[in-house]
């Protein structure tokens, strides 16, 4: 079996007080305030994810889930330990992160597709599928700022699920749209799994996560406190 993501002894610290101007910096220097008060968002996290595996990343707010996903996607760099990823990765840290309200749906599909690593030919080839999946064909040439929030999320999600990376990172975005659309998303996730892609999912919908993922990892204040069957992980969290 080939590993897809190798996280070994990873730690990440954040500074508590960010100063954005030279004046702030000088002031805190003069007052001898410790500017470098840090806080460990992640400490000694080690997780191996095999290719084709689906892992749920669970934990309370602030436990470090998003931080870990950002480290895996390369948005941030770990302060300690190492991370290795095989193949192309798409981090859906937030649906619609690259969407611009002043552009039309069509322009946003292209822009976001490219941002998530698709090349021009792939986007052209996938365009109709993406739009069909989102079910907003009629509004595709309307500026996104006139979309309802549901429509917006559906289009953004549709772009994401057609980017075809080897590794998918999904952060709290599965609760998109109405019930029928959610069913469709689940079906698409299953397809992605059947294609042998690796998934790491963060979600607060514990029942759904249990259905999708066989494995669960629970974070608590930056430490891994459980790694095993997803049913067990959900139990640990509900305790």
């Amino acid at each position, binding site marked *: 079996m080939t590993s897809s993501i190798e996280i070994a002894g990873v730690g990440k610290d954040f500074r508590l007080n960010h100063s954005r101007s*030279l004046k702030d910096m000088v002031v805190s220097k003069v007052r001898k305030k410790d500017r470098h008060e840090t806080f460990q968002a992640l400490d000694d996290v080690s997780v191996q994810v095999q290719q084709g595996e689906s892992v749920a990343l669970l934990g309370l707010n602030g436990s470090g889930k998003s931080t870990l996903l950002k480290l895996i996607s390369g*948005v941030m*760099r770990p302060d300690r330990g*190492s991370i290795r990823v095989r193949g192309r990765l798409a*981090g859906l840290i*937030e649906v619609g992160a*690259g969407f611009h309200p002043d552009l039309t749906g069509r*322009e946003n599909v292209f822009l976001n597709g490219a941002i998530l690593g698709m090349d021009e030919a792939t986007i052209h080839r996938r365009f109709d599928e993406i739009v069909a999946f989102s079910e907003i064909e009629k509004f595709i040439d309307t500026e996104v700022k006139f979309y309802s929030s549901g429509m917006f999320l559906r289009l953004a999600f549709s772009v994401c699920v057609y980017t075809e990376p*080897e590794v998918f990172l999904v952060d709290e975005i599965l609760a998109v749209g109405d019930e029928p659309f959610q069913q469709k998303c689940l079906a698409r996730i299953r*397809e992605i799994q059947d294609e042998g892609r690796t998934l790491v999912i963060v979600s607060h919908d514990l029942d759904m996560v249990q259905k999708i993922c066989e494995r669960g990892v629970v974070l608590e204040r930056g430490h891994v406190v459980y790694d095993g069957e997803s049913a067990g992980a959900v139990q640990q969290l509900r305790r």
Partner: protein
Amino acid sequence: MATVGSAGIEPTEPGIGHGLLDVAKNRFLLHLLVKKELRVRYQASMLGILWSYVKPAVQFVVFYLALGVFLELNKGTEDYAVYLFSGVVVINLFGEAFGNATRSIVGNGALVRKIYLPRQLFPLASLQVAFVHFLPQLLVLVVGTLVAGWRPNLAQLAGGILAIFIVCTLAFGLGLLFGAVNVMFRDAENFVDLIIMVATWLSPVLYTWDRVANALSDVPWLFTLYQLNPLTAAVELFHWCFWYPATSGSSALPPNMIAFGFAGLAVSLLILAFGDFVFRRLEGRFAQEL
């Protein structure tokens, strides 16, 4: 559908890029970012891209009236209007590219914080947007100088191209540098506004080089320093390309103009190398500092 296989792929460390080399692989995304920038900027504006004519036109008229007519620089310099505008065009390209590149990382913070991309794309997109705005101004300059009787030779045209190259390299290098620093300290963008304002006056845009040479005749090394400024080199090359061939050719060109052109290019390339170095050192912290 066949299952994807990544067994043969070597694992890589996420977030480690190849800097400017990655940009070459993302040309399509770069193109879309430039298009987005232009679309968004002129959204709901009636004149749209015409604004890129209006602004330099007003600026030109004001300078021309104040300096050319009231201060009578008109009289000392042949075709002063063409002289003035060829310098203004160069400085505008520099100012817009540099200013926007400096703001580009913070301005695209939502993306930088959430998705990993080669971040050099953002200042580079700013440079391209500035270039799109530069082209209509260049067109106006060409029409103006043709009216004044423009007859350039090949060397002079090459000098113009060298000047554009110098300005773009310099603005991009400085944009990388200050764009990265601006993430840590927002003072950078105010500082850059100051540099851009001063740039117009520190290069021979409004006046001619010989006034500086006269004023600095006792300290010749200061004049050499003045000429080593890549912007001075670029502005003089633009004069040589677009203004000089429209005049009777009786004005003296600055000493060693072409040599200083290449020196300006060398200085700009050094600044680009330094900007890229600093940018790479700081980019790992962009997402958490924004």
